[in-house]
């Protein structure tokens, strides 16, 4: 193990290097570019034994990666925002073909107006593609999740692609120490890729051919089952990674001071890290507050989240995107998860941080105060609160 000072972008490049990725195809988009620039450097300097294809679009990037992966080769790409939207069709093709590609997506706002800053609308709009979605909240996690992503996705019980969602600039361009596994350590954790199926002239068959209602339904159910399996084995894989790396792993969610908390704040990505500070502040003021960092968004950790929130008196969900006309995606999931519970706490949804608006621990402390006030006053809040509006 060695420690390097890396941005999260470079951390995932190292993740691909550690994972012995054999094929990369990518198309540049801010703030993803430095991921593939570094891989290009690794490959041209022979640090990495792989091929790099400089395609003419994201649609082709994911198509080419799909092609290589279909021959049984561990493959990688990365994108962001408009790039994800441009490759959207292929995003579904990959999952439905059960190809365990790992793809970091740097979360960036969508136009118009143009914005390069953090926002979760891009990956949220790809929630139902069949990709496993993991929101990382620091650079080390970004690296760890590439290795764990391949391990998880390639597991025969899963065979699903993995999207690593990481906040623009706050992670992508911010330096922090990252522990990198040695090749031996990696190999003891991540075995060579053994595909579920592969193109091979010695064993010819067609993939993705036209299918009637007689079989399509079953294919979709199998994808759902694969997600359920992924949910079941992810924590185990994380624990194994912890043993190999010596790095503490939390699994699907991370709970911070939740045990005795009366209210709990939930968030994805970097906002969750910021909330940790807010929780300490609120605790210092005598508020019994905890944090649930939701790392795995698909499959959704229903059981873990339900257990963490049941019987609490207040739940605050922060979302960095909104399903227009309804509420934030994390809030929607949290409410649906809590529905079977006997004791459902009130859930208040704050829409924050859109298009890169800063969300500091002080802001989070104030969101909590607003939420608590409303609940104490007996107000039933059913709509999301755009708490950071300036006008």
């Amino acid at each position, binding site marked *: 193990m060695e420690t390097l000072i890396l941005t999260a972008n470079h951390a995932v490049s190292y993740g691909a290097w550690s994972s012995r990725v054999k094929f990369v195809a990518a198309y540049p988009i801010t703030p993803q570019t430095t991921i593939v620039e570094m891989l290009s450097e690794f490959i041209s300097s022979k640090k990495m034994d792989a091929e790099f294809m400089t395609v003419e679009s994201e649609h*082709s990037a994911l198509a080419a990666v799909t092609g290589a992966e279909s021959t049984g080769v561990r493959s990688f790409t990365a994108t962001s925002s408009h790039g994800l939207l441009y490759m959207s069709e292929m995003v579904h093709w990959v999952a439905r073909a059960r190809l365990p590609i790992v793809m970091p997506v740097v979360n960036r706002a969508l136009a118009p107006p143009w914005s390069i800053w953090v926002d979760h609308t891009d990956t949220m709009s790809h929630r139902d593609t069949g990709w496993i979605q993991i929101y990382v909240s620091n650079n080390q996690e970004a690296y760890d999740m590439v290795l764990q992503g391949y391990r998880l996705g390639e597991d025969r019980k899963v065979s699903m692609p993995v999207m690593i969602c990481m906040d623009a600039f706050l992670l992508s361009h911010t330096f922090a120490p990252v522990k990198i596994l040695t090749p031996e350590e990696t190999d003891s954790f991540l075995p060579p890729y053994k595909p579920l199926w592969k193109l091979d002239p010695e064993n010819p068959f067609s993939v993705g051919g036209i299918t009637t209602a007689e079989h399509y339904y079953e294919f979709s159910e199998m994808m759902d089952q694969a997600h359920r399996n992924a949910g079941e084995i992810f924590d185990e894989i994380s624990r194994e990674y912890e043993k190999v790396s010596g790095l503490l792993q939390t699994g699907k969610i991370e709970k911070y001071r939740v045990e005795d908390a009366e209210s709990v704040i939930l968030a994805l990505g970097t906002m969750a890290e910021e909330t940790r500070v807010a929780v300490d502040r609120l605790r210092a003021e005598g508020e019994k507050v905890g944090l649930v960092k939701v790392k795995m968004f698909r499959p959704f950790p229903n059981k873990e989240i339900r257990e963490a929130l049941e019987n609490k008196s207040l739940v605050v969900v922060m979302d960095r995107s909104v399903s227009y006309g309804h509420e934030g995606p994390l809030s929607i999931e949290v409410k649906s998860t809590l529905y079977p519970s006997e004791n459902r706490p009130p859930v208040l949804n704050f829409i924050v941080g859109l298009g890169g608006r800063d969300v500091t621990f002080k802001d989070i402390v104030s969101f909590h105060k607003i939420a608590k006030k409303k609940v104490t006053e007996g107000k039933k809040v059913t709509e999301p609160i755009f708490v950071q509006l300036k006008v």
Partner: protein
Amino acid sequence: MSKVKSIKDIPLQEYLMPGHAACAGCAMALAVRHVLKILGRNTTVTVPACCLSVIQGIFPKTAVDVPLKNTAFASAAAMASGIKAGYRVQGKNVNVIAIAGDGGTYDIGIQALSGAVERNEDIIYLVYDNQAYMNTGIQRSGATPYGAWTTTTPKGKTEKRKDLGFIMIANGARYVATVTPSYLMDFYSKFQKAKERKGSRVVIDLSPCPPGWRYDPGFTIEIGKLAVQTGAWILWEFEDGVFQFTGFSKMIAEGKAKKKPVESYLKLQGRFKEIIKSKEKIEYYQELINENWEKYLKIAEIYKKK
């Protein structure tokens, strides 16, 4: 496979099996059948949305006896590039071919194709050009010729078709050729060459389609021949920077044969009913063909063997 020089040499091994669902008289099925005979067992095919994605058979059956990866409409060339790269990094030398329709090539797939050719990907790209979106029920494409009826050009197309061959030459493809299965030995000669070469190889196949072109299925071969004999389809190849006419088109170019009047090609096809109604329109059509020939004679001059 030893060189096929006459019909008698064609390998008996089939890779497009009986039971595929192409219409009677489908020239695309012929092209697929023969190209797979040429490429043989050590081949992988990728197919974007088009008639071939349907006629290959319904899951769990397939009529194609080599690995076949179906893919998104716009992505054939990129998918083929990735498949080839995947094999390459494993040290496997497999013929990788994309087989796409004109819609998936001239229109929605041209970006991926242009990129793959510019990068000189080591792939063969076969476009079966039936000159419309047939799979979705005969809509116009960038390859639909002037005057042709489709469901979205009910009075006949008012624009000329794109010239993909010319685009591919300009794009830097290492090997570009036009074929039609009506001239099967020309087809074999070009694909055998394509198979042996490396780099980006694009073959444009005129692919008569009975339901789309509105003719009796028995005329497929005849129509392909007439297309060439009238000069509506020109057989040529572009190899290492040298352009050459081939087959009957070569005879036309060298003045050894005369182009038949285009009317004989048009009148067999219901899709040209608007054109053959009027003498002027037929004349205009003839002019378009002559113009195109002038252009190709110039191309041949520019890229002649030095």
